[in-house]
Structures are given as C-alpha cells and as structure tokens.
C-alpha cells in the first residue's frame, strides 16, 4: 500500500510537471502580453522596452525554469496585471469556487443516486423514460444557455433570485445567490451521474450473485440496496471524484455567466489578458487538486471493494 502511494505520488508530480510545461508552451504560442499591457498610445519602442522589462524576450526554457524553481517553493510569482502575488489571488478565489463546487457536487450526488436507482429498478417504466429523457437533455444543454435561461426566468421574469454575484455574505443572501449557479453547474454532472448509476446498477442486477441473493429469498429492496448498489457504486465513485475536480477547476462558464468570483473566472480573464503567471499558477494548482482527488478516489477503491489490492 505504502509503495503504491509513493509510486502514485511520483506519477502525480510528473503529471503536474507535464501540465505546467504544456500550459507554458501553449500560452507562449498565443503571444506575449506586452502589447496588451502597453498604454494605448505606446510607440513600438515603448512596447519593446516593456517586453524586455517583463522578461518576455528571453528563451521560453529560461522563463519556465525561473517559474518552476520558484513554484516548487510555493511562489507562483506576481500577477502582471494586478500586481498581487498569484498565490494570494488563488487563495482569495478558492472559497467562492469551493462553495459553488461543493453545493453543485452535493446537489449532483443527492439527486443522481436515488434517481438512478429508481430508474434502474423501474426499468422501462414511464418514470424511467422521463428521467432518462431529462438526463439526456441535461447533458446536452450547453451550460451558458441553461445559465442564461435560468437568469431570464428566475431573476428576470419571476424576480425570485438574484442574477449575479455571491451576495453580501449573509446566510440567506448566500443561499439565494448560490441556487442558480449551482443548479447550472450541477446539471451536466447530475445527468451524467444519474445515467451512470442506472446503467451500472442494471449491469450488477443481472449478475450471478444477485440471482443467488434473490434465490435465497431476500426482498427485492435488500437485494438492490444491500448487495447490488454497493457494487454498482464503484464506477460511480470514480466519476464523482473526477467530477468534483472538474467542478472545482472547470466552472469557467458558470462562474462567468453568474459573475461568480471564483478560480475559473480568474483563469479566463487572465488568459484574455495574457496574465501568464496567473494562468500558469492557477492551472497548476487546479491540476494538483485534480491529481490529488484522483489519488484519493483510487485509494477509496480499496476501502469500498475488498477485491482491489494495491501492489
């Protein structure tokens, strides 16, 4: 087990290193920030000077090495545009992102599992068809479209909920502000998870041990919940683990549509403004979280499924 963890940790470091190199290279392919940062009336000479002052005229490997050597010590540099340490900016944004991601995650888990179970146990019923139809819709609706529709209906027409931001910090205001973005964010993963729970459970329900359990005379609910579900949830947990990582780092569109001050929105703005240190720093942090969650999920396997052995 320990050897496994160590091996996985080493792999994780490699993955994070790879991500940071990739982000660095891609960013450099898309142009340097000097011209975007210069004053609107800047002459060419001034822009060149700015580029030189910022160090963007140096070879990319030199710049990467400088970044990496600082990053391993927890210093992601300073934002070009905001003049603040990148780590501080990430830390400031993290709570908002966590709040939204956790809410969406809970919504997704709490809804998708029972819905998936009901769908599987009442296979081909009207209920099953309805739920799976909705799930398909949920998966195919583009997030920005869903977000805008929700804003239009619940904030615009009905005036029940606010259209943007995260409120004044009070409990009631926070909840009100969380509803629309978390539904928007949860919809896709909820739909996917519900479908997965359903298919996984159906698969398990057809296995030999379930037939054995039934032939022992167990009630259908005991068969489903005590025997089948446990096995059916193994792939679901993997998906949930990855999903949470995605929700954390990938709520880019939701955060933008709802003006939610999280990491995703920060990354998008930083990309648009070519604020390299922020992009590289934030993406690296998100990658670390993602890799870490993945590791946790893998370890959880062993807990849930005794057949899994780490070697």
């Amino acid at each position: 087990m320990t050897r496994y963890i160590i091996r996985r940790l080493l792999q994780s470091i490699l993955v994070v290193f790879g991500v940071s190199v990739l982000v660095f290279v891609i960013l450099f392919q898309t142009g340097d920030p000097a011209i975007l940062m210069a004053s609107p009336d800047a002459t060419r000479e001034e822009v060149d000077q700015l580029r030189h002052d910022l160090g963007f005229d140096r070879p990319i490997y030199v710049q990467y090495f400088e970044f990496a050597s600082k990053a391993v010590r927890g210093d992601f540099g300073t934002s070009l545009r905001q003049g603040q340490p990148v780590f501080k900016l990430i830390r400031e944004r993290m709570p908002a992102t966590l709040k939204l991601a956790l809410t969406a995650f809970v919504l997704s888990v709490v809804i998708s599992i029972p819905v998936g179970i009901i769908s599987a146990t009442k296979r081909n019923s009207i209920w099953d068809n309805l739920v799976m139809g909705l799930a398909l819709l949920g998966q195919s609706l583009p997030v920005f479209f869903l977000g805008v529709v929700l804003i239009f209906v619940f904030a615009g027409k009905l005036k029940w909920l606010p259209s943007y931001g995260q409120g004044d910090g009070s409990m009631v205001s926070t909840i009100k502000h969380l509803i629309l973005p978390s539904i928007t964010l949860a919809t896709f993963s909820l739909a996917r998870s519900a479908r997965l729970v359903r298919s996984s459970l159906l698969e398990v329900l057809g296995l030999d041990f379930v037939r054995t359990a039934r032939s022992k005379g167990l009630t259908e609910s005991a068969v489903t919940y005590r025997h089948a579900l446990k096995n059916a949830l193994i792939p679901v947990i993997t998906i949930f683990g990855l999903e949470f990582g995605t929700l954390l780092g990938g709520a880019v569109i939701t955060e933008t549509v709802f003006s939610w001050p999280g990491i995703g929105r920060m990354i998008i703005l930083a990309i648009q403004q070519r604020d390299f240190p922020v992009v590289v720093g934030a993406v690296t942090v998100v990658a670390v979280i993602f890799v870490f969650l993945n590791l946790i999920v893998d370890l959880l396997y062993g807990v849930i499924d005794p057949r899994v052995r780490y070697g």
Partner: protein
Amino acid sequence: MGDLLKPEELAEQTLRSRLSRRGLLRRAAVLGLATPVVGSLLAACGGDDDEEPSSGGSATESTGGSEATEATGGEATESTEEPEATESTGGEAEATEPAGGGEDVEATGEITIIQGVDANSLDPLLRNSTPEFNLNLHIYDMFLARNPETLELEPSIIQSWEAVDENTWRLEMVEGAMFHDGTPVDADAAVFTFERAAKDKVGDKPRVQSIANQIGFVSATAVDAKTIEIKTDKPAAIFPALLTSFEIVPPSYFSDESPENLAKIAESPMGSGPYKFVEWKRDDHFTCEANPDYWGTKPTIKTVTFRPVPELSARVVALQNDEAQIVTNIAPDVAPQIEQSDNARISTVTGGRIIFLGFRCDKPPFDDPRVRQAVNYAIDFESIKVALLNGNGERASTIINPPHTPPDAKAYEYDPEKAKALLAEAGVPEGFEVTMDAPSGRYIKDAEMAQAIAQNLEAVGLKINLKVLEWSVYAGELLPSGEPDEIHFLGLGSPFTGEQELFYVHPDYSLNFTRWNNEEYNTLYDQLTNSLDEAERQDLMNKISAIVMDDCPWAPLWHQVDFYGASKKIEWEARADERISAMEARYTS
C-alpha cells in the same frame, strides 16, 4: 470643442436651463478669448457630436473578454480633451471660479454601477482600462476635469494653466484640498506625482501610464505651495488634455515602494477624490463612500458600488430589477427591451472609437494608393447601417474626433464603378486574391460588418479571403505578431486631441500595422507636435487629415455608438469618453 457654441445658442441653452449661469460665463469667456479658433471649430462640429438616440449593431458582449481586452490592445479610451495650450487664458478665465458647488447637502442613498469587467490594479500608473479608470475617478482627483456634456476642460486640482514658454507649463492648484488621510494636496504632492510618473518602473513593474513620455517630461518644480512648473523637452500642446486622465497621489501613502505597500496601493486606493475607498473584493464589488470633507462639489449619493458582471443578460436583468442603476455595454439588440421596461432606459452616445480597415501599404496591391481608394469607394456603408446597425452611425469622414474634425472633411461615397475603374487603372486583375482579417466579438457587429465589406469588395472584382478570429486571439496573437494580412479590421478608442488620433497612422505607433510612410504627413505631423498655436494646429490637422483621407492607409468606417442602460430613477447621461461618475448622477425621486 463640442461645447463652443455661438452666443445665441448659449443664450438659448441658458434659457432652457441646460447651462448654469456659471457655465455660461465660462464659455463666453472661452469664446471671447479664443474667437479665431472658434469659427472653424463650430463649422467642424456642427452639432454632429451630439448623441444619436438610436441603436445599432449587435450583441458583441458575451463573457468578460470584451472589456477585459478593451483595457488592452490599445483600445482604452482614456480620452483627453483638445489641447488648450495656447488658451492658457482659457484656464485662467476659469480659475476665478470655485470648482466646488459649495452646497452642503448630506449625501444619502446608494448607487450600483455595473461594468463588464473588474479592475486589475488601481495604481494610477498601472491601470490602463476604462473600467479601472472609472473606479479611480471616484477615489482620486484628476489634475483637470472635463465637462460631462461637452468634454470641455475644466479646473479641478489645477485651477489654471498656462504655457510660460514652449517647454514650460505653469499650473496653479486649488486651495484647501486634502487627501483622505488629512495631508494637504499641495505643490509638493503634485511634484511627487509627476516624478513618480516619470520613473520607468513602479517597484519592479514597468509602468503603463505614459504621460511623462507623451509630453517629454524633464522636471517638475514647486514654485510656491500652490504653483508648480513642468518642463518638457518639446512643446506639448496636449499636456492639459492629458491631465484629465492623471491622478494626483498623496506622497504620504505612495512614497514607500516596498512590494507590500505597492500591492496595497494597487487594491486600496487613497487620493483626494469625492469618495473614500471602503472595500474591494475582486470580481465581486468595489465600494466607496462620500467624502464629507471634499474640497469641491460635495457628492450627493453616499455609497457607490461598482460590480463587474460579464454576462450581458445578467446585467440587463440587474438593471431591470433595480439591482443596478447604471450598466455599461448594452447590446443594441437588447436596447428596445430595456426601453420598454418600467425601471430602465437607454442612454446612447457617439463615442470616440473609430472603426476602420487598415491596409498593408507595403504589400501589393495596396502599395498603390489607387487600390486603397478603390476599397474606400467600394464600401456600401449605407446598406451596412440599415442591415446591421439599425440605422445608426455615419461613415467616418476623417480619422479625427470632434472638436478637431476638419471643416471640409468628406467621407468616401459608395461608388462601385469608380472603384472598378481605379482597380483597373492600377492594373489589379479581376479576381485578385486578398486576405482580410477581422475580429469577432469586440466591436459592434464586427464580424458581420467585415463579411458585408468582403461582399462589397468581391462585387468590384477582388477575391476576399476573410479570416475572422476571436478577439483574444486577434489582439493577443495576430496583432502582436505585427504581421496582420493585407486588410485588417480594427477599432481605436481615440482621445479627443486631434494630434493623438492622427498619431494612429504614424510609423512609430505600436498598433499601426499599415507600414504607410508618407513624407508629407511625417513633416506636417512633426510641425503639429511642435506647435502650441491653436489656430496653426487646427490648420495642420486639416491638412494632415486630407492627406490621410486621400492617400488612405485606412478605410475609415464609422465612429461607434455606445449604449448604456440607466435607471429611470436617476438623471445621468452617457459620455463620449466612456467615463462614469456617480458625481454626475442624481436621484430624481
């Protein structure tokens, strides 16, 4: 100057209460003192710069990109006013007026202003976008202000200004102004501010603000407690205009250049402005509160909150639900919906941003001016206006903004036959292939407009290979490469100085990719930058404009119309220079 009105117009406006008595006196003074200039300007302006109460274009707004990049790519219109270099008298005439209204009404209520993106840094030397500038407008005083309606230069911290000689400006400061920490706004603070702006770096960061470069700053000296002298290495007629975008900063807060303090300055601004900083939570809100000790006209609205909301529909809903009272970047398509609502209305203004096609004059076929003219003649702007802009806007007749628009400026007419003839004369074969770059999602109907123009050009015999790129790629990759294709679509947020607008086709300008190099232009432009005489300057601008239109490194398209949403509860109108100040908003009920 937009507000240089004829005497009878002034009287009429006063009767209609659009002008205060003080405003009347001030303008009359300027009129009287600057009469030689006025005639041509009046003819030039002709009221054309008034807002057009209409809409046009489409939703170019989607995510935070729009304004975020507005800050960038040389787009920000931190516009400045026309040079009043030789009109130092104008400054003095105004000097006798107290800038403050002196009415002691306690500020009450609150206002929320929504912009598309948040600020990055509020350090006056590091900010470079209009949204950032609008926050600073509340916390800091600019050295000079501008009239919201007319954009005329008005006293602020500087009460009068004059050019002592070609390379020296003398500025007289207001009495009694204090920074928010209680230290005085005096000559020492002004000198400190200029010297700070002249440094290449803020801490270890290259500064963005470039006033020192623009005027050729040499030194700032305190003559007495309220007077300073600025020495420049060249005549800088645009200096007073640049002062309208230049914040005076307290040495007590800004002297410490440690990284910690600079980071603090960037996010907790402190100046001498009408509002005091309260809180800034990035990408969420920026709040400031009325400064009861403000030296000038006291703010009437107590709390001002700026919120960044990138999504257009969320901005519109917030406005309609009265969660915000002023909202920027309304898509023209949405304007009718807002006009129909109970709470909100639209305020439009023809802005200072010119949209144009740039030609690569170093590449065939555009190395021949006849081909460039042909493109200008081939563009059917009237059809574009009807089909895409809901009837708004005019084909640009010059690249210079009001008030310096040359009196005889004339736009290219749509004349496809002439275009064909010119192409034939230049020996461009039928079906000659040309690549045209255009951004998508930056300017009103940018990609659509480019498509329409491509069709116009195909109709006169060119084969257009249209390359539409998303704005962040366009501004972040294509433009910095310095090698856009033969025709490239761009918009530049122009200041209002004439000189700066004309600089946009200068070989030294960073966003000029045309490689246009016209000896006559170069010579006249040098003369312009070296002249402080307003009449001579206008004459030079007229000549240069004629050269630019005739030898055409650009096909100027139109000056973009800006759309804002505002609550019906407030009096407030959009400004051509994109500034939004709570000081100019009043609750009507």
